[in-house]
């Protein structure tokens, strides 16, 4: 079953257009959502949440239209933005009181357990917390009503590696249930390399690819050499190219390259960079 189905969704802004965006996130998977700043990642997430009103297309959450079943959908979605949108003058304990009234599935014991586990103070006001603490609190709030789907919009940006690791660990625990799914938008591609099952790449409001991470990393290769040596690479195999003082670097499709030619496994960063900047 698909947790999210985005079909041909479009949205026009003054100077930006999200154009015919389509992708799916299956249950039991973590979908990495990558792209440059302003490529349309946050816009897509906001469209899924109906914070932005779509102009065309269809969005299904667990097979149901996200507008006609908006309330039921929201109860199943945990959301973490890059900032924590809760009143700054409240403590974690007070937030527990509010959220327990709002969500019928709210689990106070689990909330306090997660606070202890991630060392988030119960009695400190949100405004006195560090960015890392706020992000951990945001994730705890999103997890404590047992959602089936997590939408994370750059949750690890600006966090130190230790906090990032704790967050990723929590997400991996969440994924132990096969009915759960995560859409994880991030600039930090190393995080996605660690935990994502699929990668969806958006560029200038259009989806360039949405594929299984392993297929992507093993389906493509990086070839490095001098321009003279490059004749061994068939032109139709080259996806992206980068020139440097030491030679050239090609992003190539492995299936079109002679297997005896040695290719390096690309990182998601390289895929992004060569797809966008070095497009042939």
């Amino acid at each position, binding site marked *: 079953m698909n947790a999210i189905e985005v079909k041909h969704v479009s949205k026009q802004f003054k100077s930006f257009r999200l154009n015919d965006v389509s992708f799916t996130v299956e249950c039991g998977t973590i979908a990495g959502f990558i792209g440059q700043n302003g490529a349309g990642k946050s816009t897509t997430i906001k469209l899924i949440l109906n914070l932005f009103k779509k102009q065309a297309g269809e969005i299904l959450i667990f097979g149901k239209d996200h507008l006609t079943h908006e309330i039921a959908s*929201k109860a199943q979605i945990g959301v973490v933005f890059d900032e924590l*949108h809760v009143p700054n003058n409240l403590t974690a304990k007070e937030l527990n009181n509010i959220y327990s009234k709002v969500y019928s599935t709210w689990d106070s014991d689990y909330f306090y357990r997660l606070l202890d586990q991630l060392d988030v103070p119960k009695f400190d006001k949100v405004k006195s917390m560090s960015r890392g603490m706020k992000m951990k609190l945001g994730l705890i709030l999103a997890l404590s009503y047992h959602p089936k789907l997590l939408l994370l919009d750059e949750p690890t940006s600006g966090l130190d590696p230790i906090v990032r690791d704790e967050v990723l660990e929590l997400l991996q625990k969440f994924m132990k249930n096969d009915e759960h799914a995560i859409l994880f938008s991030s600039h930090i591609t190393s995080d996605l390399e660690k935990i994502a099952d699929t990668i969806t790449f958006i560029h200038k409001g259009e989806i360039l690819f949405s594929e299984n991470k392993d297929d992507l990393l093993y389906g493509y290769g990086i070839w490095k050499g001098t321009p003279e040596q490059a004749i061994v690479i068939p032109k139709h195999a080259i996806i992206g190219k980068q020139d440097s003082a030491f030679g050239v670097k090609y992003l190539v499709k492995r299936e079109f390259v002679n297997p005896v030619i040695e290719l390096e496994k690309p990182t998601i960063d390289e895929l992004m960079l060569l797809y966008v900047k070095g497009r042939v």
Partner: protein
Amino acid sequence: MISFLIRYYFDELSTWVVLTPLFFSFLMFFIFLEMDLLQTHLLFTLTSFSIVCTAFFDFQKRYKKMFVLFPMPFNTFLTANSLFLSGIILSYCSYSVFCSAVLRSLIEKQLVFPSLTNWLILLCVNFIFLALCMVLYLTKFQFIMGLLPFLILLSISSSTPYLRQFVDSIPLLFCVAVLSFVLSILITNYFSTRRDIV
């Protein structure tokens, strides 16, 4: 859920809700004897309410994302917001009329009952004002809300004769108040459910 939201709004804004009328009561005390009674009532209720209203809409704006993500229909929020603000109007108008009756009783050394007519006029004018604020909040001119207390002070102190004419017919005033309040709720509902939340 509606009662929870109203309680929560009150918890968050209790300082504004309680201290604003107290502050204005103190100010009004000095002009109570100089000005027309209805004028004083209007000045007190409208300035106090405009300040609380601005604080409320500012609070709503700051935490819009949190509220929008809650699994609740928009109508629940609209009802809670309207009830919360209506409750404030009701209490401020009652407080104003009651306090002036007490003060007059003390000054005239005989029992003066609170004026029901004044209370009704105040309610109607405040509801018209609330309708205006709700529509204003949807526009690009939200910043005017911060200036409203000063505008109210200026306009009321310079327009007493016209004000008298306007509030003379209570049934008409009542109809205008109900109509404008209902219209503002319909407009808010229409635009809020169709707009992007940035």
